[in-house]
């Protein structure tokens, strides 16, 4: 479980997160929705210990990110909004191997896991390709492969469908859904597109750094969405 307790985060003089309390259960599909600048990405970066709370704490499997950043990073994968900037190496298989090498795996195991991940995402034929020659949809899959290969229990997707065409949007959403339903990974989807809520079973609505709703998708009303500035 990922939990935030009385979480505050201050960036320079701005209080970006204010008294955030939440629980994300294992195997759930949680969408975090809110207008631009509502603090969604800032909140998500706390799950992976990329940001550490100014006040309060974030727990990943009951271990505080303040005490153990590595635990958070091993367990929580993060697919960034701008996936182009998430890809570190120029050759696809080398990039997917990056996280696995950091985990200290032997070369044989690294190659096996890279192969398995690329096959699972149906991009094995791209293994030797130069990243700069790939389409946006393919780059998104490579960024995703780099995270999935590390086998995290929780995966945060930060607006994964931005910059993608309809076909690639559908493909990536199907993959995210399969990761949750078939592989039982916990998904945290950061979005400002209401349509992306389709696959989620829990929703967190944010406004100006605070949570204004947290619960089952069925309980979400138009009134809340209007209050968050997501509905006319």
């Amino acid at each position: 479980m990922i939990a935030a307790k009385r979480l505050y985060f201050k960036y320079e003089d701005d209080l970006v997160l204010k008294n955030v309390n939440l629980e994300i259960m294992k195997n759930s599909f949680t969408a975090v929705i809110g207008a631009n600048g509502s603090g969604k990405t800032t909140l998500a970066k706390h799950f992976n210990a990329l940001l550490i709370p100014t006040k309060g704490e974030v727990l990943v499997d009951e271990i505080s990110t303040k005490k153990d950043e590595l635990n958070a990073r091993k367990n929580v994968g993060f697919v960034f909004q701008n996936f182009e900037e998430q890809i570190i190496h120029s050759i696809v298989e080398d990039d997917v191997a990056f996280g696995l090498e950091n985990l200290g795996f032997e070369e044989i195991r690294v190659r096996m896991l890279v192969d398995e991940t690329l096959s699972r995402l149906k991009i094995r034929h791209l293994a030797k390709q130069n990243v700069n020659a790939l389409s946006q949809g393919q780059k998104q899959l490579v960024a995703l492969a780099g995270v999935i290969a590390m086998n995290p229990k929780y995966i945060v997707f930060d607006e994964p469908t931005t910059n993608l065409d309809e076909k690639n949007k559908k493909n990536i959403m199907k993959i995210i859904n399969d990761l949750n339903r078939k592989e039982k990974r916990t998904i945290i989807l950061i979005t400002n597109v209401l349509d992306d809520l389709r696959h989620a079973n829990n929703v967190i609505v944010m406004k100006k750094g605070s949570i204004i709703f947290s619960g089952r998708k069925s309980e979400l009303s138009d009134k809340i969405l209007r209050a968050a500035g997501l509905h006319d």
Partner: protein
Amino acid sequence: MIRRLTFGQYKNKGSVIHSLDARTKIICVIILSILLFAAKAKFEILIFSSFVFFVFILSKMMLYDLVKNLRPFYFIFIFLLLMYVIFSRNQLLLGVTYLWRYSMLLIITLILTYTTTIPELIKAIENLLKPLKPLKVEPRNIAVALSVAVRFMPVLFIRLEKTREAMLSRLANFRKIMHIKMLVVILLEKMLKSASSLSDAMYARIYNENVETKRLMRFKKNDYISILIVVLLAFIIY
């Protein structure tokens, strides 16, 4: 623009040189570079040049590729030669020898990059630098920095082109210093933002300079033979 900047782009020709371990090639290039400037007598330079051309043939590199890749250096060579002709005609032979040495150096480097992929080179550099770890040299940092530079160089050019076009569409004039400055500042700002995102992405995937990558790189029979031949050549020339 990117195409104009390439030197010795890798081509998979499946030659003996292609099949050598990248570390072997780097070691041989280092020995040959030192040897090139140690060779003084005409006989030594002749042996050295014959060896380089032998490796050139083994690498299955086309003469056209060689001429094309050396093209950017012709101007420098002609200029230097002219300087010798005008200012020190009595040392013309020495000048020609130096130019010949530089050409040899370029050809050696060209063969290295023509027969080795960049990821292979980076892995080899990381591997070769490992003994320097006690001297606080972090081979992984150097390897990742090289890799990131290679990865983002085309991105930089694409961004430059896009920003330039966006400015041109709003009537920018690149004869004006102010507009060039603006282009550079915008580009720098974008690259700094990218660098920040990249560092986040690296931390998210547990980047740690102290983790030793366990890459399997094994010297084969041909690697030992190649190094032995180069060492033998060194003995002959010395």
